[in-house]
């Protein structure tokens, strides 16, 4: 029982990341009709936003290391520490949360310029060409990251204060053995909050209402004299922000490297297929579901029975869904069923 | 009515979308070699009926029997292989291929069945298919070398008709074959369809244009709100009080 609970917990944060990316993919597809193969790159850019802010904050100067007295030793000391002492250290420690503030306008800008600068020229072209051009863009972004940050994962730790684990087990009256890293708990809460905010935005604002109506029947909304295209551009920016934030927050969990974007994109696509293309709820539900399944599959007990199952579980689920229920878990009947 | 010369029998077909009854209690027999027109106001369920016939839609109840064989639940290609061809309301042709290839494709289907693996055979060796296609294209008055995507709307329809005819179907379903055509094009299409009639092909035509209907049909069924309200020869339908009410009084 405890083990099961632990695995569900373990799957939730990854599921949160899948859900956030898949949500953006679905939004972009539903509103603009674009299949964005560069969406994973947005997630990656978010993560590298954290990396860059961390690098920026720890810009260092060579100073003499006073602790070594036998010979002249030098060490790197961040300017922030030199200028502000302990406050500087604290600021550096909070690099990831600070990155969030920076990431929101930055990702919005990236998202909007991506849509205005490239994607809008592809509305009238075939799906294959849309896929190909965003695929090319994904390669370009990935290689730029590789050229700037190298090929190795870059550790981007969370603030010290949340580096430990929460004793969830004892708090809930279960076994003490159930502990869960604070940062993952934060990630989970964060993704739930962001998802809720996006849904609330779509559900309760006039803007969201128009977007939903536009997803349903674009021409109709256009006829009503509403400029759907501009609204959809903003939605694309929103999707970019969501993916970027998911990336920033994920950096402490998985040190980002240049192929993190494609890794998550492929899985998020599978999530979208399983959830049902065009269904926002389906994308979210399938995201969490597959995260949990993956976490179960990585248990040693399971792996000893089915070796390698953790690598393929998500694809297996996708295959089964496709064979049994081609429109996905929550897809509307008749939408993209062929 | 003798059963032996009934080609198509639509038996007690129901189809509803949500709460809307698109078709109810449809019972219809089409006799071999006749042209059967289905008319009715917009939204009467004419296109739904055709879609049920070719397997695009599956009826909630009832059956479509073609030549003694039940079509309900069969996939579109099986229904076509059984001998039913259809001309769509908006022409469904291969816009990237030229007119000749457009007509050769259905001939291949007729010859080779629904699947045949012959990647090393040359198309050029199939003189029969080639000659037949050329003949048909000449019949409908098109140029075999033209790209079909750049044809006029009327020519696209003619091409689609040629594609269907090339299969020598026992039953040809036509969904508004003259919609959007000029009077001149309409008349030449009527002539073409009359020519087919001489070949003894059975046809079911959905049509708005009464001029077309009365110059082609042997029998007319009138559909309104998903039901057949009248069925008979053109003369009978013309004089039917129910029909006049549906069209004029409604």
């Amino acid at each position, binding site marked *: 029982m405890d083990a099961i609970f632990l695995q569900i917990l373990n799957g939730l944060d990854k599921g949160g990341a899948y859900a956030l990316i898949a949500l953006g993919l679905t939004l972009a597809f539903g509103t603009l009709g674009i299949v964005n193969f560069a969406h994973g790159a947005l997630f990656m850019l978010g993560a590298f936003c954290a990396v860059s802010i961390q690098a920026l904050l720890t810009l260092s100067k060579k100073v003499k290391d006073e602790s070594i007295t036998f010979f002249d030793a030098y060490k790197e000391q961040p300017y922030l520490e030199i200028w502000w002492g302990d406050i500087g250290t604290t600021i550096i420690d909070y690099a990831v949360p600070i990155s969030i503030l920076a990431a929101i306008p930055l990702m919005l800008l990236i998202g909007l310029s991506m849509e205005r600068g490239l994607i809008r020229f592809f509305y009238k072209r075939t799906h294959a060409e849309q896929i190909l051009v965003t695929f090319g863009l994904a390669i370009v972004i990935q290689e730029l990251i590789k050229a700037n940050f190298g090929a190795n994962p870059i550790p981007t730790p969370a603030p010290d204060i949340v580096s430990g684990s929460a004793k969830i087990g004892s708090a809930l009256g279960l076994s003490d053995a159930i502990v869960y890293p604070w940062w993952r708990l934060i990630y989970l809460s964060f993704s739930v909050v962001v998802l809720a905010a996006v849904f609330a935005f779509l559900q309760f604002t006039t803007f969201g209402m128009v977007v939903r109506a536009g997803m349903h029947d674009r021409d109709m909304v256009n006829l009503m004299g509403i400029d759907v295209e501009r609204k959809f551009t903003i939605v694309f920016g929103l999707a970019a922000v969501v993916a970027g934030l998911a990336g920033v927050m994920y950096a402490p969990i998985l040190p980002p490297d240049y192929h993190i974007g494609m890794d998550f994109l492929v899985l998020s696509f599978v999530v979208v*297929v399983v959830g049902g293309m065009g269904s926002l709820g389906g994308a979210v539900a399938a995201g969490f579901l597959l995260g949990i399944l993956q976490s179960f599959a990585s248990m040693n007990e399971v792996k000893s029975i089915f070796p390698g199952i953790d690598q393929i579980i998500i694809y297996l689920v996708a295959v089964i869904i496709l064979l049994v229920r081609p429109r996905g878990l929550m897809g509307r009947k008749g939408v993209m069923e062929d | 009515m003798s059963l032996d010369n009934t080609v198509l029998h639509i038996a007690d077909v129901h189809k509803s979308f949500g709460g809307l009854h698109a078709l109810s209690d449809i019972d219809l027999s089409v006799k071999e070699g006749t042209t059967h027109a289905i008319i009715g106001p917009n939204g009467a369920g004419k296109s739904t009926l055709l879609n049920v016939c070719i397997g695009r839609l599956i009826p909630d109840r009832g059956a479509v029997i073609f030549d003694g064989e039940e079509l309900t639940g069969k996939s579109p290609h099986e229904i076509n292989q059984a001998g039913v061809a259809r001309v769509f309301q908006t022409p469904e042709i291969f816009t990237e291929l030229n007119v000749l290839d457009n007509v050769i494709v259905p001939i291949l289907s007729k010859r080779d069945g*629904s699947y045949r693996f012959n990647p090393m*055979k040359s198309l050029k060796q199939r003189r029969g298919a080639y000659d037949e296609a050329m003949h048909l294209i000449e019949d409908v008055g098109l140029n075999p070398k033209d790209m079909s995507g750049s044809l006029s709307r009327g020519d696209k329809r003619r091409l689609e008709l040629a594609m269907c005819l090339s299969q020598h179907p026992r039953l040809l379903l036509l969904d508004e074959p003259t919609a959007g055509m000029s009077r001149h094009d309409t008349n030449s299409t009527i002539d073409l369809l009359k020519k087919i009639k001489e070949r003894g092909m059975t046809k079911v035509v959905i049509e708005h244009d009464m001029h077309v209907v009365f110059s082609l049909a042997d029998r007319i069924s009138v559909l309104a709100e998903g039901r057949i309200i009248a069925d008979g020869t053109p003369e009978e339908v013309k004089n039917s009080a129910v029909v006049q009410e549906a069209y004029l009084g409604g």
Partner: protein
Amino acid sequence: MLPKKITDSELSIVLIFSAVVLTMPIWLAPIGAGYPDLLQKFAIFGLFAIGYNILFGMTGYLSFGHAAFLGVGSYAAVWSFKLLTMNVLPAVVFGVLFSGLFAFLIGYVSLRRSGIYFSILTLAFAQMSYNLAYSVLTPITNGETGLQLTNHDPRIIDTMLLDQAPEGLPSTVLFGVKMSGYPGFYFCALILILGFFIALRISRSPFGLVLKGIKSNQTRMKFTGFNTRPYMITAFVISGMYAGLAGSLMAVTDPLAGAERMQWTASGEVVLMTILGGVGTLIGPVLGAGLIKYFENIFSAFNDKALHELFAFLPDGLENFVVTVVSPFVGEGWHLTLGVLFMIIIIFLPGGIIQGMEKINNRFFKRSSSAKSGSNES
């Protein structure tokens, strides 16, 4: 009128193609591409792209998973070298068979859907294969190190035929001829010609016409009595077998296989080759493959020093600036160039080089033909 007739006859097309391919060592020498290693790559990737075009060009189904079949072909070939014989023929046959089988499995599931779903699914399956090759399948793939020949491989057939084991690692042979250097290239070239001939026949066969029909209007195909699914699966398997063939030839020219051949960027590369040359044309993919591999060869060789030499004629400040701008695109950064090229081609020339040339040619040809008809009248 002559060119028209020549392009119509299959025999002359294949003869011209063969002549061009077999004389590559001669006419590519002046541009620095006339050495066997690169020529082998031209032939192998040409084959890969021809096969890919049978799927994407003829049916319009965009697969992002073809690198997986390439990888399977390589692994199967290396295993054939390890277990059976260093003769390349069984290796090639096994490469094609296993990749065909693998393509059938993946195609059977992926072809349940069309359009974007199909692309997503093939990408997902390729990533899955790649992950598996690195993890659980290590006994078969030898993980990150890659599968290589060793001194204690059984090589059953070879040991039966030979009395004493040869010293050191054996090389791949075709009945005694070592498959490295030019013999290796000519072997690949002959297979390329064969592959080209088969693709030519397919595209002119009734089967090929059906595939084109599916690309153009799948709905009409169904209502015309074609069961499109088996056609699609067949096309998918054929193009998977071409990929496997290319993979096995990679192992023939250099007997090792690694999982990186299955990565998504490798799948993307073959898509780019096909599009760059011209989707749906016969010669385009070969052309695209050759161009990409040629420029990869040139670009990868550059480093900062070479760049400085290249731009030495510029004033110092400008030279440094140009080198800084250019250097991310060369050497290790070749993939960046590839990505940029990818986008440029899709944005400006989606029909590829062949279409671009046709456009130019048409303008040119039309002018000359109208001039000719004019002179006839006068």
